[in-house]
């Protein structure tokens, strides 16, 4: 065997070995998550201050995107979905194309180990999502009425552009200013791939932010009307808006 072949075998063996080790969740986190979330997972990585919204602090055990009741822990499947699909309008990409399934599973396990809440608190109650009623001619107008009745516009603005009177004052649980999503541009919404996603957000709230759960404030039919009304706000931006829009370079599926 020539010297060059020996080197090749050695090099690729090292690569394969490194990949195998990467199935360890901590190793995956250090390589792919730490630049934003920090090596301890506290949301304070070297580039964290460049990002808006800031990266999540995994040590707090507080997660926005769950299928569980407000104030409870997310399911494994909730964490896995965020890792797989990413979050629209943020720097968080989907990792399905980069990490193998085993690596993503290992990462979920590691993230859960970062907060003592996962060891001490019971699993969160999964919020029941009512079945979607058929759409009818009054769906959007009823949704608009619910939007006004629940004063969503105080924060989100009467037209859903994120320019409500309270928007500039909103802070998250870390004291950071909250950048309100523009509901008219669906690409800026963190998770709104389907109407059901919006319904889930209404019912669970976004923990750690001023967005509460409306689980007890809306009827099953009303929450779907509201979701469909929010969806109806989305529109194609005009040319000048597309040119100047604030976050044109992020995308969501």
């Amino acid at each position, binding site marked *: 065997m020539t010297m060059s072949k020996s080197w090749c075998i050695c090099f690729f063996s090292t*690569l394969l070995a490194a990949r195998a*080790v990467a199935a360890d969740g901590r190793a995956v986190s250090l390589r792919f998550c730490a630049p934003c979330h920090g090596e301890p997972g506290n949301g304070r990585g*070297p580039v964290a201050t460049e990002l808006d919204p800031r990266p999540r602090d995994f040590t707090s055990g507080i997660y926005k995107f769950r299928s569980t009741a407000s104030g409870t822990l997310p399911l494994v499947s909730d964490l896995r979905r965020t890792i797989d699909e990413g979050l629209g309008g943020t720097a968080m990409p989907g990792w399905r194309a980069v990490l193998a399934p085993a690596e993503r599973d290992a990462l979920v396990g590691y993230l859960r180990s970062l907060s003592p809440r996962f060891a001490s608190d019971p699993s969160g109650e999964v919020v029941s999502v009512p079945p979607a009623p058929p759409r009818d001619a009054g769906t959007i107008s009823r949704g608009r009425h619910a939007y006004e009745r629940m004063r969503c516009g105080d924060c989100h603005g009467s037209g859903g552009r994120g320019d409500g009177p309270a928007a500039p004052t909103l802070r998250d649980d870390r004291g950071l200013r909250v950048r309100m999503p523009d509901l008219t541009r669906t690409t800026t919404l963190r998770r709104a791939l389907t109407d059901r996603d919006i319904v889930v957000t209404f019912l669970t709230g976004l923990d750690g932010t001023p967005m509460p759960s409306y689980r007890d404030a809306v009827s099953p039919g009303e929450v779907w009307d509201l979701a469909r009304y929010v969806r109806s706000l989305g529109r194609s931006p005009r040319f000048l808006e597309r040119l100047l*829009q604030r976050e044109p370079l992020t995308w969501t599926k």
Partner: protein
Amino acid sequence: MKTLLAALLATSAGAIPRFAVRTGFDCGSCHVNPTGGGIRTAFARNVFARQWLALPAGAEAMDEAFSPDIGRHIAIGTDVRPGYLWQNSPDPAFSDTSSLVTMQADLYVHARASPKLALYWDQGVYGGFETFVLVRPLGEREGWDFYVKAGHFVIPFGVREANHTIWTREAVGFGPRDRDNGAEVGFGLGRFSAQLAVVNGTYGDAFLDAGGTRELRVFDKAVSARMVFRARAGPLRVWHAASILYNDNVSQQSPLFLPALFPGSQGEAIPYGVNEWRFGGFLGLGLGRLGYAGEIVVVRDSFAAGIPTIVGYTSYQELAVTLFQGLDLVGTYEFADSDIEFERGRVDRRGGAIEFFPFPFLELRGMYRHSVGAKEWLLGGARDDVEIMVHLFL
């Protein structure tokens, strides 16, 4: 001839400041080197390239992305730019050119022993290299930075551009081979950062600070300082940078001054004993899909050999628009005056480029430039350039 051409085209391991301007990020967010250029960070590869840079469908279509990390501590990377260049000039001193060239082929190794200590190595195919030890005594922190760099590196002056042929880089002494031995200290707090470097001032000459004479001097060093301040006002991103360099007793003339010093020359050395001053200013504005970057460098050289002190300047302006994520249109304008006291030596160059990033590791680029002005100027004269380039980066 083609070898010479390829050497002239050799691209340094540079950055694309437009992206920093547009996003408001610091150079060090996407590059291991805090002053930009070279191997990219894990954030740049996995987040920026996919979320901001490449065509979304291209990023999503990949079944599994190649990871250049070898274990936890070592990452490799590369920039390879093969391309085609066509040049045409009415000046008989230039011959038309139609060449396939490899403009850049750099291999990077980043060995990160700990958050406090790293080794950086960039080996270029044309013999240029950059290698340094990077020490962060306090580790990597959110919001602030302090580091010491020692080795052979690009002097922290101005904004490091991937295209070294723009006149604010090579024409004022910051070409792909102008890397120097020395030490740099950097500090960053929030949106402010600053670097101070002391180097030999020989721009890569291996013979310490002998300036080519191989005669050791007492303290013929160059000192360079750069400050960067970034700001945001609503959707507007602003990038300011200011730089200053003093190089004591050097023997390298600035290419910018060739028409003023030696009309018709192709680069004869001037006598030892030039004291160089460089003053640079950079302004970048990012607004949604629009990005503007403008830089000006003023050059002042005083000579020991009875040549009058010369002051000249050059500027580079760029306006880019992202038609959609993955496709940029770029318009450029450059101007240089090799001696502001005389009419001679003025040149300008206008250009346009299309940059397409179909995948998070690939760029396709087409560029046209037209130069008008002093025909004797090495980098100018009346000329048309057409460049088509493939850029693979990891």
